[in-house]
């Protein structure tokens, strides 16, 4: 049985890419904000490590923490600065070398609501529907309806671009 530090090291190594990608999508492609958010998500993972009961996979568990961290980050940022983080998220990242295609993807996802954005990113990450439902805390049936609506919205967004 590995100790917490070893386990955390493994989780951090294995899921860093997944968490960072999700934060990048949530922050509409802003790498600096995504980096901060990824760090926050892993800090929350470290703090919650003792509470992991093994009822779900580590992957689903870390997704839950990431989703909750993303939703909290938006709330906290608005409290700290009324100008809101949303404004910063629309700023082009000058130092960003991410190619045009990726920016388009993040821009499209970024036009969705916060919850829809998180759900579609888990779909793109090929997480099973039952796992996504477990992360969000809704029924699989409800999730399917949501995903159908999100896809329709995304289609509209991409067609209008």
């Amino acid at each position, binding site marked *: 049985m590995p100790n917490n*530090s070893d386990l*955390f*090291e493994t989780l*951090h190594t294995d899921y*860093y*890419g997944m968490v*960072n*990608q999700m934060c*990048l*999508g949530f922050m509409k492609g802003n790498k600096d904000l995504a980096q901060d958010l*990824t*760090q926050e998500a*892993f*800090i*929350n993972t*470290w*703090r*919650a490590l003792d*509470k*992991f009961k093994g009822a779900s996979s580590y992957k689903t*568990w870390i997704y*839950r*923490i990431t*989703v*909750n*961290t993303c*939703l*909290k980050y938006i*709330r906290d940022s*608005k*409290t700290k600065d009324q100008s809101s983080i949303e404004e910063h998220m629309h700023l082009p990242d000058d130092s960003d070398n*991410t190619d045009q*295609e*990726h920016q*388009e*993807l*993040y821009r*499209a996802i970024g036009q969705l*609501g*916060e*919850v*829809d954005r*998180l759900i579609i990113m888990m*779909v*793109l990450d*090929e997480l099973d529907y039952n796992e996504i439902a*477990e*992360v*969000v*805390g*809704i*029924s699989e049936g*409800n999730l399917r*309806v*949501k995903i159908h*609506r999100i*896809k*329709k919205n995304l*289609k509209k967004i*991409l067609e209008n671009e």
Partner: protein
Amino acid sequence: MSDLIDDLKNKWDSAKTNKSDRTSTTELIDLSKKKMRDAVKMHIGNIAILTITLIGISAFFMYVAPLQETLSHIGIALMLGGLFIRIMIECFSIYRSSKVDFSETAVATSKKTMSFYSYRKRIHGPVTIGILIAYTVGFYVLTPEFTNYLTTTQVVLMDASYLLAAAIFGFSIRKAIKDEMRILNELKDLQEDIGKDE
């Protein structure tokens, strides 16, 4: 529709990185511990300020100005009682805030967060306003006995300066309530958003 999702999936996969310049695990653990220490310091700081005020006021009425009249004793009890309740609430708030678990589902976490902010709204609203009123009544109830020992000018200055302090405190309560209301409304929107399509 599936072409659209496939296209997005391809873009999503190609955007994935596993950057080597990420924060190290040790740094993250240290950062987490530092944040915890800072949070504890902030909470303890608030409690310490309130406790020192409580002790200071108690000592003042015990050793510097041991007021004699029953009305003054009621006033002191209102002031000290209000402060004591505020300290207890502060301790309970720390306990409540620790109950929000980030590893639960988004629905469960937002419900718990909402319950915490509803509690905070009550604390910053009716409870704190009640405590402020009790403290204010307690303070002004002392005035009649103070007039026996102080000049009228001193008593007027004392009463007027309290008004200023109470106004500043009242303003900070209003700001806290507004912040809490905004967060609560956002959480309500979030829950509606999650529950939508049911």
